[in-house]
């Protein structure tokens, strides 16, 4: 036997980043990644032209951000459906789960990989911002735009965390997509049903109303409670995913 590398498992950070990087690069090696980006940019561009780029209209991207929240409803499941379902379907989950990395690292790596991909998808929309700056005088207020992007990132995190949980439950990508999609549609609709539910639960529904929070961000208001809501919600679903992964080993 010649060189034997030191037998030490990778650090948690290195494990998470290894998995996240592989995930991200796979998105760009597969058609699904490019199709998702193309569809998103096409629709986002349409929204931008129709809602924002109006002669004489206010130089703000408020409408763009509001509608982008809706655009994430089909996009987030398309990104998340692969994360764990595909691994289970193709069997690559076995070498992954027998590598010296914890289930927590696996889930976090997968989740972050998807998150980076969403970020890459949002990156080209900065072009819209540049266009808006070029064509409008006076220049648009940067505050609401920054708040809008923060909102999209937070919303993406939240939706993706739901997606990764659903993805951990099934080896069927279609099922993972549909399950996440309907869950997200339901969440989006919660705001609308608020007035029809009994008074007791009305408060709960109002708290879960994602669209109202997005609307605040789009106005340029960064409410800390909104930020906490999205972060805690994401953390909750990611932790649930870790629990699912660990419990699946015992079955």
């Amino acid at each position: 036997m010649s060189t034997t590398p030191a037998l030490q498992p990778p650090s948690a950070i290195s494990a998470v980043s290894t998995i996240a990087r592989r995930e991200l690069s796979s998105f760009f090696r597969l058609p699904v990644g490019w199709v998702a980006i193309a569809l998103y940019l096409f629709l986002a561009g349409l929204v931008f032209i129709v809602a924002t780029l109006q002669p004489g209209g206010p130089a703000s991207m408020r409408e763009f951000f509001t509608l982008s929240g809706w655009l994430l409803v089909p996009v987030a499941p398309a990104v998340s459906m692969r994360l764990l379902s595909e691994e289970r379907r193709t069997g690559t989950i076995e070498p992954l789960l027998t590598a010296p990395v914890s289930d927590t690292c696996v889930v976090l790596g997968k989740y972050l990989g998807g998150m980076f991909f969403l970020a890459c998808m949002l990156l080209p929309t900065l072009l819209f911002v540049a266009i808006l700056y070029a064509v409008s005088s006076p220049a648009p207020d940067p505050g609401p735009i920054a708040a809008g992007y923060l909102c999209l990132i937070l919303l993406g995190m939240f939706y993706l965390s739901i997606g990764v949980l659903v993805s951990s439950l099934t080896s069927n990508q279609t099922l993972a997509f549909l399950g996440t999609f309907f869950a997200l549609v339901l969440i989006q609709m919660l705001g609308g049903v608020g007035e029809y539910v009994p008074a007791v639960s009305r408060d709960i529904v109002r708290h879960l109303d994602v669209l109202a929070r997005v609307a605040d961000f789009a106005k340029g208001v960064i409410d800390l409670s909104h930020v906490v809501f999205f972060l805690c919600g994401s953390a909750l679903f990611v932790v649930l995913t870790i629990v699912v992964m660990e419990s699946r080993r015992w079955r």
Partner: protein
Amino acid sequence: MTAPVPSNPPATDTQPTLSVQGVTKSFGRVQAVRGVSFDLRRGEVVGLLGPNGAGKTTTIRMITGYMPPDDGRILVMGHDNVRDSLAARRCIGSLPEAAPLYAEMAVEDYLDYRARLFGLARADRRVAVAKGIDRCRLHDVRRRRVGQLSKGFKQRVGLASSLLHEPPIVVLDEPTDGLDPTQVRDARAMIRELAESRTMLICSHVLSEIEQMCSRVILIAGGRVRADGTPQQLAARSADGQLFTLEVRSRDGSSRHLEAIFMKVQGVVDVLESNLPDGWTRLKVRTRADLSDPRERLAAAASDADLVVRELSHASASLERAIVSLLESPEAAA
């Protein structure tokens, strides 16, 4: 959790590197593994045999840490693979059945990714990936996507990826599946070479392969170990009994009926006689499986009858037949 494992394990050859202690595993109501125990040592190449659904893959999956046992425990280089799972997993290189790989990745990238997952530093990684490519002859396909490769190449990529961290224990599920005959020969040579400083556990359906590569065979059926020993021992334990070849000639050159002489020896169940030139007679003697080596008794019988013996050998019984009969006999539990 991340206690470093000494790269040169203190384990002597008498200390097991892998110890499976009474593990059980159920899936719902189905008991897949019902108390399997064995110890493996350095330098051993062990074949895990058994019919489909015998619990082989489940046993392997418990060893590699993919799923924990319901009961019992598994020690990998002294690490409990549930309580100290990461350290245990670090000591094993495993190739799951059908070598699942990421189809969209290039061979080199995949190997680098695996090396990274096992915590190899950049310099070690480059060396390990180059060695893996070399070892499994992947030069021509190093930049190809895994999904475009033939089954044999995929298998080799999987094998290369399982050895990147130079694990002391290697677990291979159907390692020569999908390889052509030349590749099978190469793979066998590689496994033999690897075995010198490692413990190898190989699951295969190809009996001849197990017979050629493995120094020890563990037969699993119905979730239990049914037999454990060298291929020769297993073959000998066949319910068909043991087979001996005897070539004799009477001292005076007269041709006598020799069958009766050997039928009287304790344990002999059948004698088949055939005449050879120059007065020699070849006898195929079958003995009962449960008795100790009867060669001494056969030789004594020959000398009592004043026969000249020029050959007395253990005819190798087929492992295949032995295994079939071991599996068919319900009382043959090890």
